[in-house]
């Protein structure tokens, strides 16, 4: 596997503000990488640094093996899909698509042919003569993507491209972008704040917070083995339950404090008496017969979606349980739930790191 984009020790300062902190990241050719994190985490800054729209303060950025630190955006051969689409409003769809070709003085007939080919694959053929203002949100989105595709760039950068679309269209475009990627095998970097988008679309997810890469890896790796509390809480929906806990005297059980102390077994040996945080995914808490479970929990709020029921307990530390069996539960009931020891995530109470 060749590396298409390599960042080593990249830092970015805005005056005294440290926006990117020692970023090391390598992106393999043809892979789809998602940068995900809450707003202000530096993911957009990182993407714009790849494009050259922001300069990096220290460190090295290589694209296709070439050092790009000082190379202006127009010479990086990278295409970007903007959150606002940034379509040229005074140009028709066809002129928008062929802009980069016309800048490079490609022959008119050739540019027109290229535009028609790309438009055919993205379903824009009948819209080539329209102006951006005459298009719907989804169509503008497609024009923005087609404008990137037509260039056959070294990499595609997506800056929250779906955030201006409504929910249904977003799900649809998510699949379309992924299908497109599978067809073109182009290296793609996709910035989003939506962990579902990141999990469903990417081969490799990079979780960022405060300018630091918290963890990176395959989507399921992040879900199964989150490196710290932040990643654990960020990946997965509904979010993971965190409850304070203490390792038991034998080192093989955990006293969990959900308003009242309850003890759950462990599948590994830990230092007795150690303060930790237990992470319990709502979907891993399953119902058992009364008396068989490890938790007895009073029910606070019940939210039904049809496919799943979200049950929030009325304990001091709220715990969410997801049930897909349509068990009749009402507020005020007491439920018995259990969890497999392997599904219990344990984080250090002080550092938040995975134990």
């Amino acid at each position, binding site marked *: 596997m060749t590396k298409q984009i390599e960042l080593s020790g990249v830092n970015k300062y805005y005056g005294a503000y440290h926006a990117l902190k020692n970023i090391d990241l390598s992106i393999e050719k043809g892979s789809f990488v998602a940068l995900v994190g809450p707003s202000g985490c530096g993911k957009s800054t990182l993407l714009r640094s790849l*494009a*050259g*729209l922001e300069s990096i303060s220290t460190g090295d950025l290589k694209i296709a093996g070439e050092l790009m630190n000082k190379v*202006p*955006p*127009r*010479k*990086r051969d*990278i*295409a*970007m899909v*903007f959150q*606002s689409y*940034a*379509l*040229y*409003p*005074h140009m028709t769809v066809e002129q928008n698509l062929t*802009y*980069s070709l016309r*800048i*490079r003085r490609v022959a008119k007939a050739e540019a027109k042919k290229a535009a028609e080919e790309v438009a055919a694959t993205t379903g824009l053929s009948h819209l080539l003569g329209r*102006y*951006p*203002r005459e298009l719907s949100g989804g169509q503008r989105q497609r024009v923005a993507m087609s*404008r990137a595709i037509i*260039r056959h760039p070294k990499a595609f950068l997506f800056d929250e491209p779906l955030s201006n679309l409504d929910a249904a269209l977003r799900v649809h475009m998510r699949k379309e972008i992924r299908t497109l990627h599978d067809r073109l095998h182009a290296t793609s970097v996709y910035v989003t704040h939506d962990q579902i988008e990141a999990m469903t679309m990417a081969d490799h997810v990079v979780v960022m917070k405060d300018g630091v890469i918290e963890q990176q890896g395959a989507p399921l790796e992040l879900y199964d083995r989150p490196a710290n509390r932040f990643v654990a809480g960020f990946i997965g929906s509904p979010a993971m339950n965190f409850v304070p806990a203490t390792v038991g005297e034998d080192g093989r059980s955990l006293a969990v404090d959900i308003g009242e102390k309850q003890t759950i077994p462990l599948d590994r040996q830990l230092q007795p008496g150690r303060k930790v945080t237990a992470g319990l995914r709502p979907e891993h808490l399953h119902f058992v017969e009364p008396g068989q479970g490890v938790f007895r929990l009073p029910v606070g709020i019940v939210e039904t979606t049809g496919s799943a029921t979200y049950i929030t307990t009325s304990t001091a530390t709220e715990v969410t349980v997801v049930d897909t069996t349509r068990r009749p539960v009402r507020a005020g009931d007491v439920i018995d739930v259990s969890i497999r020891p392997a599904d219990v995530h344990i984080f250090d109470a002080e550092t938040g790191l995975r134990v």
Partner: protein
Amino acid sequence: MPHSPSSGPTGHLLPAGERLNRMADAPSSISSRKGLSSAQAPGSPVRDVGGPVTRLLSSVRDGRGFDIVLVAFPLGFLFLMAGLPLLYNVLMSFQEVDMFSLGTLMRPFVGLKNYRDLFAQPETLPILANTAIFVVGSIAGQFLIGFGLALFFWVNFPGAAWLRGLFLVSWVMPGLVVGAIWNWILSGDFGVLNFILREGGIISANIFWRSDPNYSLYAVILANIWLGTAFNMILLSVGLAGIPADLYEAAELDGANAWQRFWTITLPMMRSTIGAIIALGLIFTLQQFDLFAAITSGGPNNSSNVTQYWAWEQSFRQYDFAKGATISVLMIVFVMIASVVYVRSTRHEVRG
């Protein structure tokens, strides 16, 4: 708001909740008032309670009548203060006017005689040519320098906004004051312009800007460019600020260098602004009177005379009011054309 719950027949017939809804739905206070007044439209379930006078009063207070009053005031003002004099001017250009008939409206009708006489005069064509040179020279200078400055301040270096504001001082100054200042600058013997040109080795002998027929018109153009550049710069700055930054980023990633971005993004996106500013410039330039009065008085020997100054001269110096009116009618035609261009260019705004 003029309608309290018991204020009139319109008010209390709509349930209070309904009225609130209408107000909440309306995007602005003006349309909210419309929403209420539309309840009076035929077919809507509002009973007619009061007599015709009450209805009229309530309509003026809170309905279509109010709209009409709002529009009628400025329209009436415009008609009285601009429309009537304009029509009177056109009328005068077809009449024989002298000092004795000045006070009457119905004077001998002479058809196109005034126009024929005007074009028979030897100074007419040179003055029209002067006007064309003045308009084209002023607009070209104001626009190019204004655009240059707008682009310069767009770079947004520290203090740019502050410095740009200072430039507006020239636009705020009265034409007569600007004329007086330029009289000093342009002065043949001690003027600073001559000093700079001489020290720069561009001229060897002083140029008498205001009294040399070869230079007098350009002296006024120079002052007018200085006067109008700031206005051009501000309008063009606004136009530049209206172009979204991500368009430039997209173009940059598409491979366009700064020059290509200017030609393919900036200029086309500025089209409507540029159209508007050139049309406005045409109007302002044809209005420019003070500078001529202050700097050259149209002389020497009409070498710097232009139609707007000449019309005044004919009417109020020579007391040939018919001739002055005739020249003014010619100008009205030009300004009308400019106005149409201006209105059309603001209508074709390109904003995605």
